[in-house]
Structure formats: C-alpha cells, structure tokens
C-alpha cells in the first residue's frame, strides 16, 4: 500500500501558503474515502463516538458564529467566523460544525437536570427530583451498539473532581460513575490485564482465579434473584448481566491487541493537581485526561468516550473570574455577561483541545477525528433562566464520512433530538426513533449529514 507522507495539515499549509488554489472537493473527500481507509487486515477503521459536556450553559445570544457570504469563501475554507465564545475553535474550525437555534424539548422543568435528560437520553424528566431518566443516555446507546466488542465499552471521565448531577446512565437509577483521576484512568486503560500497546499482554496466572470467581458470582446472583419481588429482581438481573459481561470483558482486555500504527503509551499523567489561586487546575486535569482518552481511542481500547468538564450547578472558578460559575450564571448584568462569555470561551477552548488531540492522530490516510463524532453540549442554554432554547451544540468529526464537519447549521427551533438521532446513525448505532413525548423524532438533522 502506498504510504502518503504528507499530513493533511501540511498539504493545507502548502496550498494556502502559495498562490490561490481552487480545490473542487472538501479536504475530507480528497484524502479519506467514505468508508475510512482500511486497516492492514483489510478492515475499516472503526467509528467512534464521544460526548463532551459542561454545566451551566453559555450566553446563547452571543454564541452563534457570523456567516460569511458564500461567494467570498474559498472552497475548503470555513464559511463562518466564530463568536468570541467560540473563538478558540479556530484551529479546528474545519473539524467542527456549530448547530444553533435548536431547542431541547421537555415538558417537565427541573433546572440543571431537565436539559441533560431530555437531550442526552431523549426522555423528559420524571416528576421526582432525585430520579434519573428511564432511558439510557446517548453514550450508553452508542456503547451498546459500537462498544460491545472493545476492552472498554466506554470510558467516562469527569474533569472537576467531586460529585455533581449525573450526565450518563444506562436506565432508571443506573448511573455511570466517571473517573476523575487522570493517573487512575491511565493505569486502568494502559496497564490492567497486562496490556502493552501493540504487543501480547503479560500473562498473570491469577486471571484464571478471577474468572472462575466471577462465574460463581453469577450463579449466586441468579439464586438470590429468584426469591425477590419484581423491582429487586430487575435490579439483580442488571447486576448479573454486568457480571456476565465483565467475564467477557476481562478476557478481551487480556487478548493480544491489534497492531495500530498510531497506538502508543500516552504521556504519564501527574498524580497530583494542587489548587492554584484557590482554583482547581481544570486545564491541566482536562488535558491529562484528554490525552489518555485520545490514545485509548487510537489503540482501540474503547470506541466511546464521555467527558464531563463540569457538572450542572458547578461552582468552579475559571481563570480571570472571581465568582463560582453557577452563581455567576444567574446574573445578567453586563459585567456578569462579559465574564460568562469568558467562561464559555475557556470551556470551548478545552473542547477544541480535545478535538485537536483527535485530529493529530493519523489513521491510514485519515485522522482519528475523521472516523469519529464528538458532541459538545451543556445542560442548559442560558444559565440565568435554566433555558433550553437555542441550545449550544457542537459536533466535531466526520464519522467516517457520514457527517459534514466545519459548518454552521443555523436552525429555527429544530428539535435537538434530531442531532442525537443523526449522531447515532452516523456512528453506526442507528435507532429508528429517538426521544419520548415532545422530544420524540424519527429522523435526523439533514444539514449536518453528508
């Protein structure tokens, strides 16, 4: 197979640095065929899915990019100029589509959780403030569909340490707990099960003991289950399913991995992140986690990643801002709004960092981001009202050619569920319908699809 030595980025630089060039095709089609480029064994690179979430919304009125006159835009160049909040997307602008004007549909309003449940699971929140929606979140749907053959069906992290409202669950009362410690993530993904990138694992005879113990556990779960009422029987049935899956997962984690050119150990994260100026080191923590996640995707340890930068209601203090983010988000003075724009800008910058990491990983003639879809969103639009209208939605990646990155898709009150529908379809986790009640849709948002 002929190997190209130029990365897309250097080609682009060369083209744009020289004379005016007219390119007939978007860059993606030029270098990546629609199926993604084949692996050595003839299989296509897998499609990946990710969610990148932050709490407390944005300033939606000042969020949307400015569209350029299409006649003045060079082919292959973005047709929009980022707003200040979106400014740090600039280096990855060709890889990110900004969707504006979409609404999250929910008839039940419970600030700071209704948006998350109604968009990310498609089911408006139930009446109890404690309960979590009954449908799995989009990352859990994707993990079931495209993650079930990976050593880790999904990897979930939370950058701000400590608790907070959940963002991922598999169904009613079944919340997925993220990892916050970068070193712990690094250790479990790159060392557990004797894993070594591109090499057979170091074998531990104790694995056999662990496997036989697990299979006995499954039997005891079944024995207890038969004595319980329906509600508790369901709970134990779920537990038993996870134990049976874990038996398979442990085997898979201990198999010799496929050889992947871009796969290597990530940088070893720091073990300690002391506060600086009474602030959590969010950027350092996020970047350490993001590097591990990116490499976990490159090594095909997982195909689904989930990052919670901050939870809804977080009182994190961002650089340059005295107030806690949630406290600030409830203020609408000009000063407060300016600070909130700075906060969004900082948050979007971290999302862009993750996209850059994914774009820097080469997969054949494509980059990892070309085979991925990464949703960036929050739990509300305007924090001050806990609004769900004109919701902030970013989508990075081309999902193997199914999505068109680099656009500004301006909608007029589109149902946000359509975005979720399109994303699942694009990564090969397609559903026939998404969402319940007013969030229900049976089709995607065509403007974001190829």
């Amino acid at each position, binding site marked *: 197979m002929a190997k190209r030595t130029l990365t897309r980025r250097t080609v682009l630089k060369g083209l744009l640095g020289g004379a005016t060039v007219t390119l007939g095709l978007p860059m993606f089609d030029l270098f990546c065929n629609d199926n993604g480029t084949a692996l050595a064994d003839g299989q296509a690179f897998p499609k990946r899915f990710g969610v990148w979430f932050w709490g407390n919304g944005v300033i939606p009125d000042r969020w949307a990019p400015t569209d350029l006159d299409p006649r003045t835009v060079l082919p292959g160049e973005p047709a929009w100029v980022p707003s200040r909040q979106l400014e740090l997307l600039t280096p990855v602008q060709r890889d990110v589509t900004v969707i504006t004007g979409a609404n999250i549909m929910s008839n039940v309003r419970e600030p700071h959780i209704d948006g998350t449940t109604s968009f990310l699971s498609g089911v408006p929140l139930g009446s109890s403030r404690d309960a979590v929606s009954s449908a799995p979140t989009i990352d859990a749907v994707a993990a079931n569909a495209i993650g079930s053959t990976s050593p880790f069906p999904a990897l*979930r992290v939370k950058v701000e340490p400590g608790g907070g409202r959940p963002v991922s669950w598999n169904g009613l009362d079944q919340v997925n707990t993220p990892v916050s410690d970068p070193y712990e993530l690094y250790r479990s993904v790159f060392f557990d099960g004797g894993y070594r990138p591109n090499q057979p694992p170091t074998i531990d005879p104790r694995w*056999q*003991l662990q496997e*036989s113990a697990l299979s006995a556990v499954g039997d005891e779960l079944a024995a207890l289950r038969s004595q319980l009422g329906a*509600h508790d029987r369901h709970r134990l049935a779920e*537990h038993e399913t996870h134990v049976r899956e874990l038996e398979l997962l442990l085997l898979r984690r201990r198999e010799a991995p496929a050889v992947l050119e871009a796969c290597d150990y990530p940088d070893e994260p720091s073990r300690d992140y002391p506060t600086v100026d009474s602030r959590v080191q969010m950027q350092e923590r996020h970047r350490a986690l993001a590097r591990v996640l990116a490499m976990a995707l490159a090594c095909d340890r997982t195909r689904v990643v989930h990052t919670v930068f901050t939870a809804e209601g977080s009182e994190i203090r961002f650089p340059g801002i005295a107030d806690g983010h949630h*406290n600030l988000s409830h203020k609408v003075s000009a000063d407060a709004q300016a600070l909130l724009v700075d906060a969004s800008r900082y948050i979007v910058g971290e999302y862009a960092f993750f996209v850059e990491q994914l774009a820097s990983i080469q997969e054949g003639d494509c980059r990892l981001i070309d085979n991925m879809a990464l949703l960036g969103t929050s739990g509300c639009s305007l924090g*001050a009202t806990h609004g769900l209208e004109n919701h902030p939605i970013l989508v990075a990646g081309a999902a193997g050619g199914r999505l068109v990155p680099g656009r500004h898709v301006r909608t007029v009150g589109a149902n946000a569920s359509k975005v979720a529908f399109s994303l699942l379809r694009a990564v090969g986790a397609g559903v026939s319908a998404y969402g319940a009640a007013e969030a229900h849709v049976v089709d995607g948002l065509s403007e974001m699809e190829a």
Partner: protein
Amino acid sequence: MTSVSRTPFLALGLGVLALAGCTTTGMIGEAPADRQEPDPLPPPPPFVAAPAQLNLLTPAQYRNAVRDIFGGDVTVGQPAPVDQREAGFFMVRTSTIVLAPDGANRYQEEASRIAAQLMAPGPIRERVMPCTPTGVVDDGCASQFLSRYGRLLYRRTLTEAELQRHLRLAREGARLPGIEDFYGGLEAAIMAQLQSPFFLYRHEIGEPLDGTSDTLVVNGAELASRLSFFLWNTTPDEALLDVAESGGLDTAEGLEREVRRMIEDERARAGIANFFSEMLELEKDGGVKDSVVFLHANAELAGDARRETLMTIEDHVFDQDADYRDLFTTRRTFVNRRLAALYAVPAPVIGDGFALYTHPDDSPRRGILGQASFLAPHASPTDASPTRRGAFVRAVLLCQEIPPPPANVETDLAGRSAELPLREQLSEHRDNPVCASCHALMDPIGFGFQHFDGIGQYRRVERQFLFDDQGNVARDEDTGDRLVAREHEIDASGELDGVAFESASELAEAIRNHPALPSCLVRSMYRYATSHADLPSEEAQLRELQRAFITGGYRIKELLVSVALSEGFRHANGLRGDDSGSDEERN
C-alpha cells in the same frame, strides 16, 4: 390508637410538607403552638409495613465490613459508589440504586486486591487462617476458613450448597497450572464471596407473621443485619450473629436487651455519626474557597469542621444524653488550633488535637449551625448565601420541601446593584411575587446567619473586595493590603414562622423551639434505619415514634431503641411492593 392531635406540638410539622407553590400563608405550621391552634391532622391510615428490601452496601459499609471481619490492616480501595441521596439519605438510595457496569468492575477489582492481601504470606494470613493446610488441596482446612468467614460476610450461616461451591472453587483454583497453591485456590473462593450478592446486598426474605396476613417478620439474621447497619454502620459481629441465630432477637425483651447492648458499644458512636453525617450533608465541603477573601480558608477546613460537628453530636448524644433540640443552642463544642483561629477563641493546649471549648453566653455562635460544617458548604466560593442556608434549615432540619425555581424565570440578582448589601440585592426575591412565594421560606432564615462569612468566620460588617482581571482579590501596590470595594453594616434580623429574631443566637433559639424540629428528626431517623423512603402507610408508625420521642424528653438514644423495636423496623410486607407475580425482567 391513643389520641394524636391532643398536643398541638405534635400536629405541627409531622408530615413532610411539600410546600408546593410555596404560598406563604397557612401552609406550614408558622405559628408556635401557644399562639395559634392549628387544625389537627387527620388520623393516618392503619399501619402497613413497607415491602421487603434489597439494600446495596454503601462504600463505607463495605469498607467497615471487610476491615471488621479481616482486620484493620487490610487496605480497601473504592467499592461501587452510591450515586446520590434519595429522600435525604444515601442509605435510602441503596434500596433503589441499580448497579452499573463500572460498579461490577470495581467490586471485582476490590475482591481481587483484598483476596491477594489476605492470602499473601505474612501476618495477615497468619491471623486469618484458622488452620495450616496439609497440601495444595486440603478441603478440611479450606472448609474451616470458608464457613467461618463466609458466615461473617453473608451475615448468616452458609448453606451446604454454597459451601460446596466455594470449596470447589478453592480446590480447582489450587490445582491450576501457574497457581498450584492452597492459598491461591482459597483466593478464588474469597473473591467469589466478596462479590456475592449475599455480601453486597442486605437482602430480606423474612418469615410469615401468621397464616392470615401478608406481613413478614424480618428473621433473626436479617434483623441482626438491620440492627447492625442502623446502629453501627457495619456488619454484625460474631456475637450478634450467635444471638440472632439462636433466636435471641425473636422476643421483645431479647431484642431490647441486644439493642441496648449495641448502643453502649463503641461502634454505635461511629454508627450515629454516620446518620448525622448523612442527614446534615457533612460530606459537602463547599468547593475550593478563595483563600484571600477568606484568610482562614485552608485545605483542612472541611475535615476539621466535620470532626467538630461529629464530636459535638457524640458528646451530646452519648456523654450528655441531652435533649436533641439543645444541639442547636448548646455552647459546648470541640476545636483544634485551626478552628480556634477561625472562631477567634483560645486554642487548645494539646498540640494538633481537639479539645472541649464552651462559647461564652454572649457569643453569637451557638449550636451546630454556628459551626463551619454548616456555614461553609452553604455559601459560595467568595461569599455567604442566606438562601442556601435558609433552604438547608427548611429542608433538612424541618423536613419541608422547597420546590425548584419555575422555568424561564431569570434568577438574577444583579438587576440590583452589587453595591448594595446582600440583603438588598436579594430583595428581588421579596418584591417579585414569582420568587417571593418560595424565597420567603428561605431568605429570612438565612439572614440570621449573615454575621458568619462564607467559611463561618464571625464578621461585624459585610465586606466586598475588589477583584483584578485575573479574578483574584486586588491588593494595594504599596502596602499589599486587600482592596475593599465597600462595607456594609449587617442586619441579621429575620423571622422563622412567626418568631422574630435579631441575631444568630436568637435564631438558634427559634430553630430549637420550632415544633417541626423533633418530628423531622424522627422521620429522618426512621428513613435511615429502615433504609427506604417512608410510605403513607407508615405514617401511623411515625406518629407513634414522634410521640414517644417528645414525651421521652427528646433523647436520641431512646429514639434509637424505639425505632429498632418498632413494627416498621421488624416487619415487612410480603407482597414486596410492585410484585405482580409476573416476571418483568428486562434482560
């Protein structure tokens, strides 16, 4: 039934009053009994026990159990978390939580690590092994170990089938190539026991009370578990299991004797600490406080403050056996050097430890609401928050639910100039009727705490600092002093359901005397003890317990006894709630 509503005190605030819509008139027992005779509550429906339950161990219970059974030198990492509170308690959440895949993974990893520690050559193995194996396979020795520790882990004697299953694991494991070791084989069986649902869940099957009703009696070993996790927050010890399995808990006298023994045991102090820790949300630390706004803020503050409150409670409940309500007005507390500096009181002479300190009678600081464990978390990173503090008093101490703000209401305070005192900024909450209906229930309480800043230090004036463009407090270039934007005198007056107060000290009295305070504690204790959200069919039981608590002089130790002896604690409904007889598994 004896009359319930004869005492006006009782009728007030007995139920969990959901303040839906937050109409401020006539919703809550806003006037003390001697000022207004409230309508008596309608009699509750006859008592029916809650369905039998399945409670996942909390991470602390898992850790405590493993260390109590195998020894305090065994390291336990992070078992599956309990994700959130339900009805105010993690303990209640354990009855509904569904284990997620990451939870199963954590249990597997923990089991593997613990088994490896137990069976590695060394002092732990020497201590826990009841025998010396005669070879790679020694069923007799393995059986001694597995039946003994299996009984402690499962909180009941293993069935023969279970023991044989675990023995087979040990035997086959010992013979595996690469293992070929008795202790290695035993590891497999220990891992299985540690991941068994019989260890990880408190499960109740029960026995029929009689042939005519659906009522079940929580049986001996199951009741031992209920008692132990309620009173000790850990697993039953061998002595308690012996009593339970020999029928010692089957009579009222036997049960009471055992309950009183357990309450006098050291472990009850940790157990009741856990109850208050959950109820008062002591795990919350309020995030990272600005250490320039608050010069006494430090990384140890949250831990110190939690310890102060738990020591105060332990002293109050166990050593003083005092009236619960006085916990809100007591002058007694325990401080270390850092807290003494925060409170500007003399430091204890003994090094880094905590020592008893009694605040003077004219101090504004009284009771557990005068402590940093309450004042700091219910505040923002840079300031106090009357709304959050007031909401805590309503929801946690008086069991009155406050609905979330309505949709699409700008919860903005900054329409009011930031130059005004916080009380004036918050006036939006009073003047806008949409906000006022609920905020009237919170803010006027919270104002009473305004003399305490965002980490709980006393302040005479409300001071707002200037911030630079890094978001940090600006300093004078020459002197290095913090630059103050403005200062306001503090007005700490307010009212709590018709009782006016001028200061935190008077507010403490008002909370102490609020009729909903004791009944709310009883409800909370019952929820925690039975580990489920109380049902309407349990209201009659709750009223009985509330009456006993009040007539008994508000003593918490006696409340523990009466809860443990109550039908609600000892019985379960055999219909198991939603059990329709059909298998609804979604597998």
